[in-house]
């Protein structure tokens, strides 16, 4: 992603590129562990979606469908919040993560 020089920036720190945080792949911060979604166990309570600090829970057609690893930092909140009886999200070991992109 090409970064602007100081001359190219809008004055006063103003950001006119609304919604540009999608360009910031926070998934690059993940290290060691990642959440794994087990669809059969999911009761669609949406707790994970509610608590995920990075909006990384994938929702399609009104249902939780998995994790968007481009933004998931591996914080584990979703798996903690997932009801204990179901535990439809578990944290698993991750060898390699996304290599590049996002903020330095």
């Amino acid at each position, binding site marked *: 992603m090409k*970064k*602007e*020089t*100081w*001359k190219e*920036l*809008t*004055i*006063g*720190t*103003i*950001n*006119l590129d*609304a*919604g540009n945080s999608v360009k910031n792949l926070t998934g690059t911060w993940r290290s060691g562990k990642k959440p794994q979604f087990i669809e059969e166990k999911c009761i669609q309570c949406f707790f994970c979606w509610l608590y995920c600090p990075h909006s990384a829970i994938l929702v399609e057609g009104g249902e939780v469908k998995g994790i968007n690893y481009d933004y998931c930092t591996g914080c584990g909140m979703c798996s903690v919040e997932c009801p204990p009886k179901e535990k439809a999200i578990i944290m698993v070991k991750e060898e390699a993560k996304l290599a590049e992109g996002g*903020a*330095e």
Partner: protein
Amino acid sequence: MSTLKTLNGNQTIAEAVRQIDPDVLAAYPITPSTAIVETIAKFKADGLITGEFVCPESEHSAMSVCIGASSAGGRVMTATASQGLALMWEMLYIAAGLRLPIVAAIVNRSLSAPINIHGDHSDTMGARDSGWIQIYSENCQEAYDNFIQAFRIGEDLKVRTPVFVGLDGFIISHSLEVIQVEDDDKIKKFVGEYKPVYPLLDISRKMTVGPIDFTDYYFEHKRNQMEGIENAPSVIEAVGKEFGQKFGREYGFFEEYRMDDAELCIVVMSSAAGTCKDAVDELRSDGKRIGLLKPRIFRPFPYEKIAETLKKMKAVAVLDRSSSPGAFGAPLFTEVRSALYDYAERPYIVNYVYGLGGRDIKVEHFKEVALKLEKIAETGKVEETYGYINLRE
């Protein structure tokens, strides 16, 4: 027709505020600037101004209101002093970083401890790296004129930077002076209509003001910010000239007083410069070739112009009404001395701190300084680079 009015420094600022009638005025009263806020409140109650007058619970909040209102797209001002400015501290950097052309009248007063309500420059000098333009005034007339020009300077599209207008606590803020007050319509016309850039109230545009920057953008945004204040000199000059054409009182970066054939020079700002002029007159009638350089603009510091003027002197004394503990000299001195460094031909230069906590500086003190300068010029020896005036040693 402009009129002569007997006003003190605080009243002259309030008078200028009434004429400019900014969209939002947010201030918390503090000695010696209280009367500015009080008078504005009275103007508002009497229906003489249309701007919103906000009384927040502290100076930190006052500056926060200013930042919000300015981001929204309004012309905004405040007034404070001393501890009040100190309490605004973190918001000052935000106002400058967001390039909001807020104008603040600062009635210069010492900082605690020990607690003291009198005039010195510790407050604004303490904020000298906050990114605000700093203009200092010798008397009530200059405070009025500078305050009006401050809006034009700060709001210029190349500049878009907040501005402090300093006037010395009590010595100026509470001293009556006959000043030339220009016509309301002429001042309104001079200041012109405010044109905000990227106002938040323009809901047709989606944007964020002040989002987080990490290691990848902070540096570029700071450099981008500096461009505003670095663009200010040409605007300061043009506005000062235009003010002169319209109202007969022209302003530049500094005033030179009897500098034509001077060999010795005293550099001093604000009200003390008035006293220094009397000392220079007396010394001149004794045949001494001495002059005064009174900086008006401290930020951006007019280093080239000051150095060009001072390089031919034999000896220069820079007088500071604030101190910078542990530094090599007080703020004005370090700027002036540094400005002269690149010149092969340059004067001996010394620094005296004076007037902390409102301690008087009189004609006789300037004469003592002149005597020391004479000795330095004669002998080529500087015994003390850094000293104090009118201090019990």
